[in-house]
């Protein structure tokens, strides 16, 4: 579709960041980003994900000792204007004194590209983002979604070595966010460009990332494919930050986990397990005549169309969240029996 050169491999070596006021935004970080992959930095605000992105971009320098390598070449002290990376911001950051076409062509103008080539490239970008009609518009005449398309086109127009996206969808409404997420996904795949995407939205991270780096308090909590992060979270923080996690407390003896709501057969149970975690979709509402399982009472039920989301009181601090696709109706106070797929059980 559009010729991006050989994708770039990025490596961070011992990159820490302490701000002038003494706050440690990032603990020393080692990370290898493969050429052509989309890596997502995910975490709550203040976890260091944006700082990491800015270090890769060249907007911040890591503390002494940290190194940023582009294809093995040390670029730590190279300012952003010489790194040739495309950036997309949450606030779009389009130039209000230029038209849409002017914005998209800006990077090429800086590079002293001949006018004819700029026009051709801008036309190509406009077509790719399906905004050809907007070419001569002023920025303040565009909607949020259109602005972010322009920002993407502007960043890609210069054929950057990597694309850095800082919460690009956060300012958009939910529906548009879904549409644009799909567009960004197919864009990144078709370009084959190395992309670094920062977000606090786990759905975005799961959908876009080849790998996800979950961050907490300036540290990496886990790096892995979306499936690994979701199914095999390395820490409690990851388990609770991504998706919904249920928790039961009790004791384990002879392959049986006992808690207030009943006993749970779990052959592989580690003897020390006093707390088990599992996802809502790993719970099944048992038929009423089944003897086994945990006892609970429906505290709240939300019919979502394709499924019902239930909050079931089982004598724990928090009710269990259960997703049921059963065709029956649930009411507040209904007694239910629950069985849990042992493959989904986690001890952290």
């Amino acid at each position, binding site marked *: 579709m559009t010729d991006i050169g050989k994708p770039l491999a990025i490596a961070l070596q011992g990159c820490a960041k302490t701000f002038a006021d003494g706050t440690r935004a990032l603990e020393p970080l080692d990370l290898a980003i493969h050429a052509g992959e989309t890596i997502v930095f995910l975490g709550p605000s203040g976890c260091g994900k944006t700082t990491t992105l800015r270090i890769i*971009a060249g907007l911040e320098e890591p503390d002494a000792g940290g190194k940023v390598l582009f294809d093995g070449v040390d670029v730590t002290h190279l300012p952003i204007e010489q790194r040739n990376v495309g950036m997309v911001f949450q606030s779009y950051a389009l130039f209000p004194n230029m038209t849409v076409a002017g914005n998209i062509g800006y990077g090429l103008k800086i590079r002293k590209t001949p006018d004819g080539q700029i026009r051709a490239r801008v036309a190509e970008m406009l077509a790719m983002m399906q905004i050809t009609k907007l070419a001569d518009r002023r920025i303040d005449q565009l909607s949020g979604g259109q602005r972010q398309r322009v920002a993407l086109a*502007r*960043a890609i127009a210069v054929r950057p070595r990597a694309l850095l996206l800082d919460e690009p969808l956060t300012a958009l409404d939910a529906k548009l966010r879904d549409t644009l997420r799909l567009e960004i996904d197919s864009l990144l795949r078709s370009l084959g460009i190395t992309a670094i995407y920062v977000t606090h939205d786990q759905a975005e991270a799961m959908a876009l990332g080849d790998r996800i780096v979950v961050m907490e308090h300036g540290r990496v909590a886990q790096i892995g494919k979306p499936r690994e992060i979701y199914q095999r979270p390395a820490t409690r923080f990851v388990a609770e930050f991504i998706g919904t996690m249920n928790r039961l407390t009790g004791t384990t003896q002879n392959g049986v986990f006992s808690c207030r709501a009943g006993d749970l057969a779990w052959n592989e149970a580690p003897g020390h397990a006093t707390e088990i975690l599992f996802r809502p979709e790993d719970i099944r509402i048992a038929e009423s005549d089944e003897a086994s399982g945990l006892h609970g009472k429906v505290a709240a039920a939300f019919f979502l169309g394709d499924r019902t989301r239930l909050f079931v009181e089982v004598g724990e601090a928090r009710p269990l969240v259960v997703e049921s696709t059963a065709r029956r109706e649930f009411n507040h106070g209904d007694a239910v029996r629950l069985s849990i797929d042992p493959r989904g059980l986690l001890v952290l």
Partner: protein
Amino acid sequence: MRRDVQRLIFLLLPAGIFFAAFFLLPMARLFFIGGSGKTGWAAYAAILIDSHYLSSLISTLGVAAATTVATLIISGISGVFLQRHKFPGNAALVAMLTFPLAFPGVVIGFMVIMLAGRQGLIGQVTQALTGDKLVFAYTLSGLFMGYVYFSIPRTILTVMAAAEKLDPKLEEAARSLGASPWRVVLDVIIPGLKPAFISAGAICFATAVGAFGTAFTLAAKINVLPMVIYTEFTLSANIAMAAALSFVLGAVTWIVLALARTAAGSTVAAAG
């Protein structure tokens, strides 16, 4: 529709009255007084024909324009710097930069004399260094210096307020696209500050055109319109000529400011 028009007229009334009372009526009165002298309407022609009047008109506008440009450059650079870099004493420095506002023109003229007058600091230094004494307090250069001095405070505060609203992400976006720091200034910071530059520049220009105290203190060779009007009015008692000059001073200033605003507006539209 008729009711709408009526309401519109009604709502415009306060502005209309203000405009009439403080602009149209005085200007009209000045205009007619200007034509009521011994020479009649020729007074107006004299401004353009008489080299004394014409040169004073030109030097007034020239000093005002130069003051505006110099002030905008100085205030633009220091305003953005002071906004961006918070250092110990920043607030005290900003307060100090604004206090020339409190000085009457006479004091500013006096300061210019102390700096660049016959016994001034610059004179002493240049005499020690080159043997020649550099004295420019009593010329247009001295006036320019004084005007820049008292124009900086107003301008710098406007620029700082505007600089605070600049989106740093815009600069980062420009840099990510390869813009050097100088290009960022040219393509992002200056366009972002343009509205502030226009409004501060307009005030700066108008003030410099009409300033009197400083010129009066420096006196002697300085030939600017407010001085000429003063001379015509008090010494020659040529009231008609003073009125004609005043009218032209007001009208020319108004035209220049209107042109500047239109030019600025059209470049914004053209760029957008």
